[in-house]
């Protein structure tokens, strides 16, 4: 698993140590390595390119100011996405959506559709995009973290400050919603 994750972690950890000493060249390298993932993370959650751009800028400033706080107990990616997560929550609060977003129930009916329809539907990239976009915020985020960022469930738990069981539950329900959506909008419909 994560064939290059250890090397990536070591390199990014070394960059953070240099950033903590005030080396802007290290900040540039860190930015180059992580900006796309931070931006994608924010954009998926906020659905607004301008807001996501601001979050990216704020997160990198946070890295610059507080790199010394990285203690190496998690991967640098987990650490930086954790910062992004809190920035996003703060932004959503300002939009007055927080209660709805944070308390979003991890519950959907469990009447899973037939696998053949869902399997046919998942072959269609545009269909997958439409169905992923329809997921509730919290479910879309865990799907992104699990399948775009390839994070483990303990890492997602750390980033989102939710129990590992909740991470699994959200993915489970997201999966059910996606299957229903892909079947409903699938090719043979």
């Amino acid at each position: 698993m994560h064939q290059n994750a250890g090397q990536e972690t070591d390199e990014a950890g070394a960059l953070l140590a240099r950033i903590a000493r005030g080396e802007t060249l290290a900040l540039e390298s860190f930015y180059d390595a992580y900006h796309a993932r931070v931006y994608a993370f924010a954009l998926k959650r906020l659905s607004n390119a301008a807001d996501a751009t601001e979050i990216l800028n704020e997160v990198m400033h946070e890295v610059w100011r507080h790199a010394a706080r990285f203690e190496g107990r998690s991967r640098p990616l987990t650490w930086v996405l954790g910062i992004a997560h809190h920035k996003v929550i703060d932004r959503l609060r300002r939009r007055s959506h927080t209660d709805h977003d944070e308390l979003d129930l991890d519950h959907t009916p469990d009447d899973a559709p037939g696998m053949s329809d869902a399997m046919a539907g998942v072959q269609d990239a545009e269909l997958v995009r439409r169905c992923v976009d329809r997921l509730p915020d919290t479910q879309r985020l865990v799907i992104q973290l699990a399948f775009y960022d390839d994070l483990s469930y303990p890492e997602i738990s750390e980033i989102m400050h939710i129990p590992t069981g909740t991470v699994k539950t959200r993915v489970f329900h997201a999966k059910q919603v996606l299957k229903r959506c892909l079947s409903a909008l699938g090719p043979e419909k």
Partner: protein
Amino acid sequence: MIEPEHPEELLPWYANDTLTGDERQRVEDHLRDCGQCRQELAWLQRLRQQVKGLQPLESPGELVRAKLLREVRSQPRRQRVQWWQAALAASLAVIVIQGAVIFRLSGPGNMQVAAAPIGSLPGQEALVRIRFKPTATETQIRQALRVINGAVVDGPGDSGVYYVRLEGLDTTQPFEIQDAVQRLKTASPVVLDVGMELLS
């Protein structure tokens, strides 16, 4: 619906190759004999491929990069205060308070005691560090900040921490800060933890 004994909750993590140890072994053992889970895994793997291709607009990489570097190069760098600096500040506090008491007891009644920095060292800023519950609304956060007449100057950063300046207080006086912290803890149900940080 897959039956409960199938390791369905672990399959997404097997699909993204992050499962380790016993959990990974359990899934692999199960997959050998379960066509239903192999089919589920194939669906998850295809979903993962599609999600990886879903990334929308390109990151405004160069634009933000240039702005970031311009800003960090033009701003003085904040550095965390070392423990010995905090200890020195505390020691100074004791010395200055003792000196003030002695001066008051021995000096002329109408003379003022010279102000001295005892909560923070010269050139430092004392900020209150607050972490709110994730479910705290903006209204609740605003209410909490009003209790201490605080203004957010940074955050939320790592672990959702806000750094707050106490308006109208002399932050060189540690007792004023401690009093504000106590009022905040008592008055706001959405505060997870609160502390003080000296920044230079």
